[in-house]
């Protein structure tokens, strides 16, 4: 039976597209499923069709060439791929995916599956983060890229990571006033990491260019800050921080863009049964994968940011590498030289990744900045104080227990947004380190499932249970 089914790829970002391209080259016709309306993924997200005419150089800056190459790669194989845009994979069970498309649910069996589900912002709140005008870094970038609008007229940037400077730069270029760039990383840590950055001079040069450009345009850049609060009545009107010397500093602004890196979308891998391990670099539980992208489940492959944050270039390489692993496992001929080349480049990127992580370390004490009344889980209205309380009282020593007792992670997003903070808070309160509190188990549906869509498509399931037995 296995081997007869076409391979399935979830995600049409750089990883998924390069995987599809490689499978097509080997004569297969993969199914590519993506929730988005157009291919490109997060970084090379395309604006909605019609009406938007800005050139790629305006949308993607330095990355325009790469974006264009990835878009073209997909366009070139379009008629040899069973491409399913606007299709959410909401469940994975026993060798089949459940898809939600055009208001109906459909089951797609697979023998070989590549998960290239990408990442979203890692949202770690601070007091005032729920005020209108406070956005995530990625969200602010998406607004610019996708809708062609800025999140404010005078925007403050807070957090850490390369994206912090990149997005601030993109905003400045777009003619928006940048009120300041506030990096939680100390200057010393960045200086220490600089020699390592020389391993990738292009990235280093870009980073220096962003910083230089921001400086020459009079944008204040501060290192080693910690958030105090976002202020404002109806909408944010200032960002208050503690600077490296411990002084409070108030910056007027009408929008804040903040981000502490990205978090992988791992739910599908979890439902597919993949084994997870704690990854120090990403400070997260990730599905295990070998260098080629094989997961712990035969026939399931992992590529791109969905199984560990490594960036768009790595995603392209990893997508192709996973496709090659799939072909090898199907006993099809693969080009060994290409495999070695990909492996070499992926290894070098991984090494550079460690340098970047050292340059932008996660602020381990971030959770301490949260006042007890700071909202952690917006869906369910759970505060930092409520989580600290279940941890301190000894009632919850791990994530799923904390969820059961406080409801953190039980709402619409199912913890996709709040679980990173919950983990930070619990582990900080318990003194265990983030790996010590475990991870939330994924439950279907991955995203809210509209009941209306299910009604018109009766599934042959029996009306099983006898109500007298249960409940």
């Amino acid at each position, binding site marked *: 039976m296995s081997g007869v089914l076409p391979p399935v790829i979830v995600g049409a970002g750089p990883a998924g597209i390069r995987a599809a391209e490689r499978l097509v080259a080997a004569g297969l016709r993969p199914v590519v499923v993506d929730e988005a309306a157009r291919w490109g993924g997060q970084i090379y997200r395309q604006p909605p069709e019609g009406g938007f005419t800005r050139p790629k150089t305006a949308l993607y800056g330095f990355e325009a060439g790469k974006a264009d190459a990835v878009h073209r790669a997909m366009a070139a194989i379009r008629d040899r791929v069973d491409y399913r845009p606007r299709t959410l994979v909401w*469940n994975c069970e026993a060798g089949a995916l*459940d898809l939600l498309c055009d208001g109906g649910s459909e089951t797609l069996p697979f023998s070989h599956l590549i998960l290239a589900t990408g990442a979203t912002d890692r949202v770690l709140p601070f007091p005032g983060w729920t005020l209108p005008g406070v956005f995530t870094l990625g969200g602010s970038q998406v607004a610019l890229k996708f809708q062609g609008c800025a999140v404010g007229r005078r925007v403050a940037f807070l957090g850490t990571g390369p994206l912090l400077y990149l997005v601030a730069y993109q905003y400045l270029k777009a003619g928006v006033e940048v009120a300041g760039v506030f990096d939680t990383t100390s200057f010393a840590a960045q200086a220490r990491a600089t020699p390592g950055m020389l391993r990738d001079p292009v990235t280093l040069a870009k980073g220096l260019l962003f910083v230089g450009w921001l400086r020459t345009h009079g944008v204040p850049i501060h290192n080693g800050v910690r958030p105090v609060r976002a202020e404002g009545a109806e909408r944010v009107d200032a960002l208050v921080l503690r600077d490296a010397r411990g002084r409070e500093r108030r910056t007027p602004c009408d929008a804040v863009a903040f981000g502490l890196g990205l978090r992988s979308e791992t739910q599908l891998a979890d439902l597919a049964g993949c084994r997870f391990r704690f990854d120090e670099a990403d400070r997260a539980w990730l599905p295990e994968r070998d260098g080629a992208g094989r997961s712990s489940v035969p026939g399931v492959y992992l590529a791109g940011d969905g199984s560990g944050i490594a960036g768009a270039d790595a995603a392209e390489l990893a997508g192709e590498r996973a496709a090659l692993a799939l072909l090898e496992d199907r006993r099809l001929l693969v080009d060994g030289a290409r495999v070695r080349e990909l492996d070499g480049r992926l290894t070098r990127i991984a090494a550079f990744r460690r340098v970047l992580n050292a340059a932008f370390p996660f602020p381990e004490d971030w959770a301490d900045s949260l006042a007890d009344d700071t909202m952690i889980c917006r869906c369910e209205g759970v505060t930092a104080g409520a989580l600290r309380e279940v941890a301190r009282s000894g009632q919850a020593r791990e994530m799923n227990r904390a969820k059961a007792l406080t409801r953190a992670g039980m709402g619409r997003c199912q913890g996709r947004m709040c679980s990173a903070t919950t983990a930070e808070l619990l582990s900080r309160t318990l003194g265990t380190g983030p790996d010590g509190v475990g991870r939330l188990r994924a439950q*279907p549906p991955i995203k809210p499932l*509209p009941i209306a869509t*299910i009604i018109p498509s009766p599934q042959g*399931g029996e009306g099983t*249970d006898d109500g007298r037995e249960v*409940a």
Partner: protein
Amino acid sequence: MRERIECDVAIVGGGIVGGSAALFLRQAGLSVTLLERDWCGAKASGVNFGGVRRQGRPLEQLPLSQRAHAIWGRLPELLGTDAEYIRSGHLKLARSEPDLASLIDYRERSQGFGLGLEIVTGEEFRRRWPALGDRAIGGSLCPEDGHANPRLVSPAFARAAAGLGAVVREQTPVDRVEKEGDRFVLLSGDDLEVRARFLLNTAGAWSWRVAEAFGEPVPLESLHPNMAVTEPLPRFLDVNIGVEGGGVYGRQVPRGNMVVGGGRGFALDADRARPQRDAVLTLMRDAAELFPQLRHAHVIRCWTGVEGYTPDRNPIVGPSRTTPGLFHAFGFSGAGFQIGPGVGQTLAELVATGETAMPLEPFRIDRFQPTA
């Protein structure tokens, strides 16, 4: 070095049954050690639908169920929390004349147990529950039944027991049990040995292992009721809803989320289960048919749990037939949440006094044909 604990009573399993037994045993002044493999209340007791319902139970369960009802009424005093327990009423719907007749028949048969069932039909039914509209021709209301948040109630029993001095060990699986003379010996790994005069087997769907260790094999099957919950919706329902003849059931919590159940999930392994796609889709369809208010809502989460079912759907409750000092309580077949605290109290009574007024004969462990 192996830690040793001597006590009057050892309990295997910290669900609502084991937790409540521990609490009542401490109230009776006995020393108690409760061993829980996972976290107390993390299994069936913590993930169930939350229906606190007497109506519809087999008559032989009603005395225990009534006993539990009295305990549910005292939650704040016993546990220091109401755990979102609400006596909302449980309304069992009839979608046809024969179903209505069967509800009327149940009311007749359960007279004398104090359920206070009220049959409501026609105009009055539509006036009182306009939201249920045309789906049903009537129903049977048990006004003092209701629902609670299982995630909060079940761990709270074990916690209250610990507050009264019970030794509660979580993340502590019982790997071996045996009897040496008049003492039960429980071993957890190489670290812990518990010795006790009495042993309560309240290990839920895994209780058959303990029973088997004392030569009492039982035909217990693990099944996995499917649950789903929607995003919060405007309030339209304040009673806990069941349907005569089965299929789907639902309740709306004060925040507005609708919790519905029906169908079954599947086992991942002996300890874990997952909702099943066709059951989830069927449940969504059936629920929207019963509650048209759900048509434009989203389901945000589905789940299930592991529960032990017996062939006759009655639990096994009472003394072992092979081993003095051993008492079993498991196999609640999808309905042990409400009755659980009543069973816990009865176990405590059996241990403390050697007898109980509860009729346990229908729940004898040896009522089934021996399994080959």
